[in-house]
């Protein structure tokens, strides 16, 4: 399943990185401590977080996650949006919290 298909199914709003929407979703990782995520998220993971800053985009690039999902309507910084667009890293926003979103992702990936 692509992240675009997942976003459509779960009602996520695209915030940046449209060019990467065909990335395949492979697993899920939940975390806000960026250095922790950097060393543990796997390539292809759908990354659920509330951190919408430039460093988060760099972590996604480094870990090669399929997308970032900013839960609880957390904000995406302007410079982070620009960089996500440049890097083609899809960033979505959604209202539910990290747990509920993870459960929804699990339901689609199982």
């Amino acid at each position, binding site marked *: 399943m692509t992240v675009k298909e997942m976003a459509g199914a779960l009602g996520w709003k695209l915030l940046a990185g449209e060019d990467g929407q065909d990335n395949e979703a492979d697993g899920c990782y939940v975390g806000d*401590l*960026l*250095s*922790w995520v*950097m060393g543990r998220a796997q390539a292809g993971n759908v990354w659920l977080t509330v951190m919408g*800053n*430039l*460093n988060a*985009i*760099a*972590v996604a*690039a*480094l870990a090669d996650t399929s997308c970032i999902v900013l839960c609880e309507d957390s904000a995406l910084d302007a410079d982070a949006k620009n*960089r996500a667009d440049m890097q083609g890293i899809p960033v979505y926003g959604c209202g539910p919290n990290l747990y509920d979103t993870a459960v929804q992702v699990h339901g689609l990936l199982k």
Partner: protein
Amino acid sequence: MRELSLNVMDIAQNSISAGASLITITVEEDEDLDELSISIGDNGRGMTPEQVEHVTDPFFTTRTTRSVGLGVPLFKMEAEMTGGRFSIESTLGAGTTTTAVFRPSSVDMIPLGDINGTVSMLVMMNPDLDFLYTRGYRPRGEERREFALDTRELRTVLGEDVPLNLPDVTGWVNDYLSENTSELLTKDTQEGATDI
């Protein structure tokens, strides 16, 4: 990072990569000011003003192995998340000093972690380099105190031909750091004070 001491390790590695022969690590805690300051300085090759300007951008890196560098940006972010501040000063050909100031009372404060282990590891893994580690502490309402480990002094005592990564030397460094840290962080208790 999950421990600030890991940031110290990361920034010190930058100093080593910059060709430093002396790395200065200062950890200073002031309870009255509610500040924990961590500073890493070196006498390496330094940076141009343009490099300094971009050093907190994770997509600006001199690494050739990957396209992002998160050590300095994360250090800055972690300090600022506590309400603290970050600065970096560098002179080309002279060296770089990176300073992050944290507010320990913040809910977003990350533990300092095993700073002694970090310093000991840096000394052990880089026996040809010198390190000056200073730990300062001012408990609430008390005088500031400090201790320091200076490998240049250690070489003077041991002799230049004794490598600093010998197990006996490493053991001594560990004991020195442990004992002095313990003594430093023990708060003075007024004689006759009543426990409550």
